Every structure is written in structure tokens, then in C-alpha cells.
């Protein structure tokens, strides 16, 4: 077993990996940038090394600095977490060259998955389903007509050189095809100086469902069931759950077997995730593979009873998977809310700053993976994920009920968070009925929130506001004087005046 693991990350995932190390009797090494000296992962760890300026390129993305710390600390392995260097093949290769075990796939497997065209060729050989269409440019309108008829409407025309929606047209019916193709071509020509257009079946209101896999270094690969991640904003996942409400055992087996084939085609080892788009008829299509531990891994842990970080470490040491596919059982339902420092009243713009008050939920079926604490200042330099709140229950309804209860216990003061958004989603009738797709959240946010004026609660607030003014002893503590009612009253008035 490893003696010492360096964690090349920060925030909640660094804390998560430190905990796994300590559970396994392994010393943990942290790195931190100048603004993270007081960060939670630096408080929890056994050894900590500064690695420079706040900008990630100067610190958490700086391969040489991290390898230097590994050498100085005598670490024998590196866990990259997610984000930062986790999917950087150059980093994985540099670790191997320095005699350090990278806890993740090999650089070669990352390369195979990183290149979309290479990945697609390898996957096609392995019989992996893709969104039907042409993988090369259309020669003529007649060809477009034939392909569209074969794959079925609606279809999507896409510029081969495309990006940002330019040269893209959604076509619902054959009579729209000709003009759509012409306008897509001319737009592509204008935008990219390349008029090549290809055609794909349009997946209307897809669901995003992904399959967790684990592969050891002895050729054993298993799938651990799916996660549904259809609740997204700007392609950022907001809520994930396992199992998916629409996946039955047969579909799970079919998706799982495809995911295992994808991993094996790439010579994949360690933990990975194969992402699929799923259409309204439950057809699933390969999207991409994420070659790392995912943010949302806890929901899989809760429904399988496995610890993915422990397993990652066991695999990296060279051990065999301790179970077979048939041993994997899905039990109960788990759902994760990503608590971000962002302002719901200001278009969910990041809201860093000092956490002045933090009341955190606990109790039955609640797991909280947090990277913050009260009194800490959330820096402006990194991703605004503060914590993950995960609810577990016998079934989906109970998981939702527990999460709702926990969200009501949760309070973060001093900075804005998206906690109120989760209350809204979890209370939505479509969400409760599991009627969701990747457009769900945008549609929800376009609707105005029905707020009922609560006069009773407003009266409670009025009484409380007065009591706070009368009772607040903060200025009193500062002067350490015994305060009589008169001076307390004056300090309250002074605070008001200075506001």
C-alpha cells in the first residue's frame, strides 16, 4: 500500500481524498496557493506545501511545482481530484516519468479519449452507439434528403468546422430541408470559410445519463450503475441522482455493457465515467468519457455501498477488483445538490466573500462533502463550488424529502448561495414526477417564481429585527464593558447610523 499520497487539488474534493487517505492509514500531502493557506483542506492534512500565486496556472495547474512537492515530501502517489490537472495526459505522463503513481488512467488512455475523432473510430469498432448521421460532409441536397429520410426527422444540420451554434439548423420536416441546408452552408462559409455541413438526428429534449465504471490493471472492468444529470444550467450540472428514474435493470445492463466496451477499447484503468444522451424513446447515444473521478460520485457510493476513492487507491496499488459485476447491487436512491457561491438574484453570478454564519444540516440520510467553514473567505480565484449536499432514502421520494428537510436546516450567511434554487427544483411537480431533460432548469428559471406574501412570517421578522437590535452584543464584546441597557441602546443606534 502507498505510504503517502499527494493531493493535487483544493476545496471539497481535496478534503474528500484526505479523508479516504486517513481511513486507509495513508499520510496525506496538500498543496496550496497563497490565498488558500487557511483553506479547509490545508487544515485537515498531514503535510502542506505552498505552491505560489492564486492564479491556477501559477499553482494548482503548475506541473513542475507539484512534482517538486511530491519529491520533497516523499509521496509515492498523486491523486488529481477533478478539474485542474485531472484529465491532463501530460501530467499523468510526467508523474510516471518521475516514478510517481498517478491515481487514474494511463496517459495513453486519456489521449485516446481526448481526441474526439480517434475516440469515435475506436468506439465505432467496439460497436458503441452514436447519434445517427453522417460523420463526413454532405455532397448534395439529394444526399441530405436520403440521409434525413433514413435517420428520421427532426434532424440537425451542423457545420463541420462549427462552434457556438453557427451553421447549425434544426429541421423538423422534409420541406424545410432545402432552405435550411442553403442557409447553414452560407452561414458556415461566412463564419468559418468552410461550407462543409453534416447531418445528425436531432435529439429533442435529451436526458443526460452517465455510467460509472471501474477497471483494475488486470483486465477486469465493471459498471456501477448510472447517474442521471439532466438538471443543468449552462452545461453545468446542478443536481445528480442515482439510479435514473427511467432506467430499468435491462437498460442499465445494456448501457453498462456499452460503457465497459468503451473503457476496454481505450485500455482504460481506474475510475471513469461514460456519458450518454438519452432520447424520449430511451435510445442512448455515446457522448464522451470523463477520465477522472466525478464531482457527483457520492450518489453512486450511496446506492452501491462502495467507496470509490478507496477503490481508486486499491486499483492504483495494483490490486484486483475485490468484487465481480454480479456482486454490484443498487439499493435505495441518492440525490446530490451542488451548493455554489452564486447569487440567485443576480443571474447566478459568483458570490465569493467571507462566510459569516454557517449552519449545516445532518441527520438521517444526509451526507455533506464540504470544503468550507464559518469565518473562511471564499476566494475569487476558483470554481464557486462550496459543498455537496447528498440525500439518501429507500426510494426517490424519501431522498427528496430528506434533502428538502436538510436544505431547510442549511444556512450560509455573508455570501449568496444557490440553496433557494434547490428548494424550488425539489418542490417542482415535474421534477417530483421525474419528468426532466437538459432543458428543464432553463424553463424553470424563465417562469416567475410564485411567491406568496407571508404576513405572519413578516411580523415574525419585524419582531426579530427589533430583538436583534436590542440584544446584539457584538459591539459590547468588543469593548468588554459591562453594558447596561442604555449604552446597549446607544450602540444599536450608532450601528444604525453607520450603516
Amino acid at each position, binding site marked *: 500500500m502507498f505510504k503517502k499520497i499527494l493531493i493535487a487539488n483544493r476545496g471539497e474534493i481535496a478534503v474528500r481524498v484526505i479523508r479516504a487517505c486517513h481511513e486507509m492509514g495513508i499520510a496525506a500531502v496538500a498543496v496550496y496557493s497563497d490565498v488558500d493557506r487557511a483553506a479547509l483542506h490545508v487544515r485537515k492534512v498531514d503535510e502542506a506545501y505552498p505552491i505560489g500565486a492564486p492564479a491556477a496556472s501559477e499553482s494548482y495547474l503548475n506541473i513542475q511545482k507539484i512534482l517538486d512537492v511530491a519529491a520533497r515530501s516523499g509521496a509515492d502517489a498523486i491523486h488529481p481530484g477533478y478539474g485542474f490537472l485531472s484529465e491532463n495526459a501530460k501530467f499523468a505522463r510526467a508523474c510516471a516519468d518521475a516514478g510517481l503513481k498517478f491515481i487514474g488512467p494511463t496517459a495513453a488512455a486519456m489521449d485516446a479519449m481526448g481526441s474526439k475523432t480517434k475516440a469515435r473510430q475506436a468506439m465505432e469498432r467496439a460497436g458503441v452507439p452514436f447519434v445517427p448521421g453522417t460523420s463526413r460532409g454532405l455532397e448534395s441536397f439529394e444526399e441530405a434528403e436520403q440521409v434525413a429520410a433514413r435517420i428520421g426527422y427532426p434532424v440537425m444540420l451542423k457545420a463541420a468546422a462549427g462552434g457556438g451554434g453557427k451553421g447549425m439548423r434544426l429541421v423538423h420536416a422534409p420541406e424545410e430541408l432545402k432552405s435550411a441546408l442553403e442557409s447553414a452552408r452560407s452561414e458556415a462559409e461566412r463564419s468559418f470559410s468552410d461550407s462543409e455541413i453534416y447531418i445528425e438526428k436531432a435529439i429533442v429534449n435529451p436526458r443526460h445519463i452517465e455510467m460509472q465504471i471501474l477497471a483494475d490493471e488486470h483486465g477486469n472492468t465493471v459498471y456501477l450503475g448510472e447517474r442521471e444529470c439532466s438538471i443543468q444550467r449552462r452545461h453545468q450540472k446542478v443536481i445528480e441522482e442515482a439510479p435514473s428514474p427511467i432506467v430499468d435493470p435491462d437498460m442499465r445492463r445494456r448501457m453498462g455493457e456499452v460503457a465497459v466496451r468503451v473503457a476496454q477499447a481505450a485500455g482504460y484503468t481506474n475510475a471513469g465515467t461514460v456519458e450518454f444522451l438519452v432520447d424520449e424513446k430511451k435510445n442512448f447515444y455515446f457522448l464522451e468519457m470523463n477520465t477522472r473521478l466525478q464531482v457527483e460520485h457520492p450518489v453512486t457510493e450511496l446506492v452501491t455501498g462502495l467507496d470509490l476513492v478507496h477503490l481508486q487507491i486499491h486499483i492504483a496499488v495494483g490490486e484486483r477488483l475485490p468484487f465481480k459485476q454480479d456482486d454490484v447491487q443498487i439499493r435505495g436512491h441518492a440525490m446530490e445538490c451542488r451548493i455554489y*457561491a452564486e*447569487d440567485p438574484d*443576480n443571474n447566478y*453570478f*459568483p*458570490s*465569493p*466573500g467571507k462566510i*459569516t*454564519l454557517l*449552519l449545516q444540516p445532518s441527520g438521517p440520510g444526509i451526507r455533506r462533502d464540504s470544503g468550507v467553514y464559518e469565518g473562511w473567505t471564499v476566494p*475569487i*480565484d*476558483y*470554481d*464557486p463550488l462550496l459543498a455537496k449536499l447528498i440525500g439518501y432514502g429507500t426510494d426517490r421520494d424519501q431522498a427528496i424529502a430528506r434533502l428538502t428537510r436538510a*436544505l*431547510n436546516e442549511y*444556512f450560509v*450567511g*455573508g455570501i449568496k448561495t444557490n*440553496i*433557494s434554487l434547490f*428548494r424550488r427544483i425539489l418542490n417542482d411537480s415535474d421534477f417530483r414526477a421525474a419528468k426532466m431533460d437538459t432543458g428543464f432548469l432553463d424553463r424553470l428559471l424563465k417562469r416567475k417564481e410564485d411567491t406568496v406574501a*407571508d404576513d405572519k*412570517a*413578516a*411580523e*415574525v*421578522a*419585524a*419582531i*426579530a*429585527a*427589533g*430583538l*436583534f*437590535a*436590542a*440584544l*446584539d*452584543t*457584538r459591539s459590547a464584546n468588543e469593548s468588554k464593558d459591562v453594558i447596561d*441597557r442604555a449604552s446597549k*441602546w446607544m450602540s*444599536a*443606534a*450608532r450601528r*444604525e*447610523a453607520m*450603516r
Partner: protein
Amino acid sequence: MMTYDITIDGKRYRLDLNRADDQWSCRLDGRDVEVDAVLIRPDVLSLHIGNQAYEVKCERVAGGTDIWVGSARFAAEVRDPRSLRGRVRAADDQGPRKLTAPMPGKIVRVLVKQGDAVEAGAGIMVVEAMKMQNEIKSPKKGTVQKILVNEGAAVNAGDVLAIVE
């Protein structure tokens, strides 16, 4: 005896509070209310009204105080009518208006120069935090009287960035 004029989400209340022998007596708009309160820690109040129990949180935010009753948020203003200094000046759309940073961040671009005429809603500068950019807009039509920060400067929430006259 303490008297407060309290505004909750724009609605005004008059609150009289008195404490004798650890017991509060409370009148809200002239109505007696049975209240028991314990300050659990700064900013957290366990409040009983009759036998109804509430946990109420107080959060100081840019531009005032928010009171949270459970998960419902209310913007609160507390004034002591006997305190002259506690009076709030009426917001004046005619005079100069300060633009403040809504969050800590970095000024990535200043879009106007001192002396420029601007429309209400015109972009004045761009603040970046957590890799997202936010445009600070002019609150009124007028002239840029002063720019108080340079491009590249780090700012804290509430810092004055510019003044529009």
C-alpha cells in the same frame, strides 16, 4: 423601554420592547404579543411567539440587513425614532450616485472615461470574479464624475468604483 420603527420588505411596523426580570414584553403596532427570545449566538435567535417556535437569522448585506425566518428572507430596516442620527436620508436621484462593487473581484475593463455622458443602464466597467465577468451599469443618466479604480485593481464588495453625477 425601547421603541423601533421597523420596515420589512417595504412595510412599516412600530415595535415596543421592554425587558423585566428576563421576560420580554412586546407590542407590535399597538398589539400585545407574547414573546420569548434567546440569542443562541450572534445573528441567530431562537424566538417563541406564543408557543410557535422560530429560528431567525440576521445577515448584514450590502445596503442593509436581511432577516431570515426559516428559509424566507426579508429585507429589514430598523430605526430608533428617538435617534436623530438614525434617520435615513431620502434617496436622491438628482445628486451624484456612487457605483459600488457588488462582490469582491478584479476590474478587468473600464468602459468609460471621466467626463463621459452616460445613459441609465450603460456599462461603466467590468468586474471579474471566479472566472465570470459582470458589467457594472450606470444607475442613472448623467456624467461620469470620477473613476476611482484602475483596470487590474482588486476590489472588495461595497468599494466605490465610480461616481455618476
